[in-house]
């Protein structure tokens, strides 16, 4: 178990989440991919902070803050998804453009 392994795993998960955000059109799946990216950044922070022994507590605190930010982001994002489904009857982001093509 090395830091390189943990941070590589986090980078690969971040890349998969980035791919999901760019590739999918379903708004809920885009939010889930964003969660994946935030989660992988958490893993990278914990892996990096465990290289510094007792001082790594700062990293764990930072992970707690990111946890709170992720919860707020999901709450607002899903509220937007519910509003989108009520007004436009779809959650696909491409079908929401109102400018003529």
């Amino acid at each position, binding site marked *: *178990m*090395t*830091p*390189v*392994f*943990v*941070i*590589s*795993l986090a*980078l*690969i*998960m*971040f*890349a*998969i*989440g*980035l*791919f999901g955000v*760019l*590739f*999918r*059109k*379903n708004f*809920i*799946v885009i*939010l*889930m991919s964003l*969660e*994946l990216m935030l989660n992988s950044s*958490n*893993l990278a922070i*914990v892996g990096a902070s*465990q*290289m510094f*022994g*007792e001082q*790594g*507590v*700062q990293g*764990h*605190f930072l992970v*707690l803050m990111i*946890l*709170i930010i*992720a*919860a*707020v982001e*999901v*709450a*607002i994002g*899903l509220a*937007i*998804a*519910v*509003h989108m*489904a009520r*007004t436009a009857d*779809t*959650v*696909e982001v491409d079908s929401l453009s109102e400018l003529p093509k």
Partner: protein
Amino acid sequence: MTEVLMWFFALLAIIGAFTVVLNPNPFYGAMGLLLNFLSIAGMYMLLQSPVLSLLQVIVYAGGIIVFFLFVILLLHLRRPLADRDSSLKGVIAVALAVVFAVVGVSALFIYPMNGFYMAYVTAKDIGQYMLTDGLFAFELSSFLLLVGVVTAIAIVKLYREEEK
């Protein structure tokens, strides 16, 4: 033992992540996200941080996944979601993700990194840091939660007002 568990959790995390981005059904995507969160909780346990592991299970696997499932089942959109970009955009997305992963992972090998110097971080340590040095960020995060609740309610109320 640690080596076996570490590869096991890493493999499960990657499988879950691919399920999220590739499965056309958002419900199975949420299940893949659950698998990913649980295996990341296992990685935290291997990294000697049981507090974050338990918080990951409670907040992510217990709270956020249920939140996603509520919304997916509440909306129950009948139209089948053919929402994959198979055109040029998909190729560009794959290329960007691969470039990001390759550049990031190879950057890790340029400079030699320290090995782990692990500390067993308990809730007491995190709580002490939170209420001394991190007090300002802690208070601001409570304010952020309040703003999030108010914003979510305001967005949902928007529809009712348009209807009248």
